[in-house]
């Protein structure tokens, strides 16, 4: 078993935008579920401090990339659901270009094979 280290604060801040937008592109979701998904997809390598996700969500909402609505779940519990806007979908494309550019450059430097997506 390798030991996972927490991402630095800067890296978390930078990567949260494409991660959240891409998760919401698959369908609406709420804070807790988003965090669970990120944890699951990264195999536990990306661990967010739970509360810190909400300022990120609110910032994305202010920028018009996502929207939100309070909804009642079947269990009777209310949650604030977030969903992506058309601007958000456009933003994913740009984010994708940027992150793949960084990824590919690092791969060349480290002489590992870029993961083609």
């Amino acid at each position, binding site marked *: 078993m390798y030991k996972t280290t927490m991402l630095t604060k800067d890296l978390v801040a930078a990567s949260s935008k494409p991660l959240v937008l891409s998760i919401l592109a698959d369908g609406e979701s709420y804070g*807790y579920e988003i965090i669970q998904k990120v944890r699951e997809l990264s195999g536990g390598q990306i661990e967010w401090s739970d509360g810190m996700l909400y300022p990120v969500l609110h910032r994305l909402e202010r920028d018009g990339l996502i929207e939100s609505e309070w909804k009642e779940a079947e269990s009777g519990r209310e949650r604030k659901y977030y969903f992506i806007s058309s601007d958000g979908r456009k933003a994913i494309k740009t984010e994708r270009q940027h992150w793949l550019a960084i990824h590919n450059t690092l791969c060349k430097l480290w002489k590992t094979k870029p993961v083609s997506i």
Partner: protein
Amino acid sequence: MENQTRFDLNAAIEKWRQELTAYANLTAEVRRELETHLRDSIAGFQQRGLNNEESFWLARRRVGQPQQLGEEFVKADPAKVWRERVFWICLAVFLLGFLENIISSLTQALMPVRGGSFLDGLMLSEILSVLRILIPLIIIVLLGLGKMVWQLSKLKLFIESRLRLAITAFVLIAISATFDVVVSTMHNAKINYLASAIPIDHKYLVPIWSTLVEPTCYRLIILLLLVWFLPPQNQKLSVQIK
């Protein structure tokens, strides 16, 4: 096992929620959102076999330090935080203005010019003047001490929707306006009564419209601000999460 029966999960969550209210940067909507998160998180830990107390403390730790969170929220959307503050300030100004108007109207109305002992009237008006300062002061101190939460939750009824808020505020404005008219009418009646006995300048007569229009316009402006700045989470407060 013994611990589990002694630990009251709902009380713990309630206490945590109260702690959050101490941080002005965490708006009511944010607190509500964090609470739903905490509850989801607790449920997640419980499913993994942890008891109520362990689940609560782990979930609480995961959510993070309220102070730090508050700072992040302000950075994320400063205008939103301020909008909510402005709403509560406007609401306080509006309600205190209403209270002030009612008490000062009573003070004036109860100052007898004819009949009754003038001294009695004076005493009464002084008691009312003291009340005018004391009542808001007591309310503010109680709120500051975190009391009156129950009363505040009743207030929620009136700010559930923009329409309900507007109607409630409008009724209060109408009551204030009625008081204004009644008081200035009574005042003018007194002046007229005095004028019949001694020569008195008519400048002491109060034009009813001027006492009515100006404060009413001012109150209507606050009403508009209130409706405009009503935080969105209050508009959809249909079900309380339990």
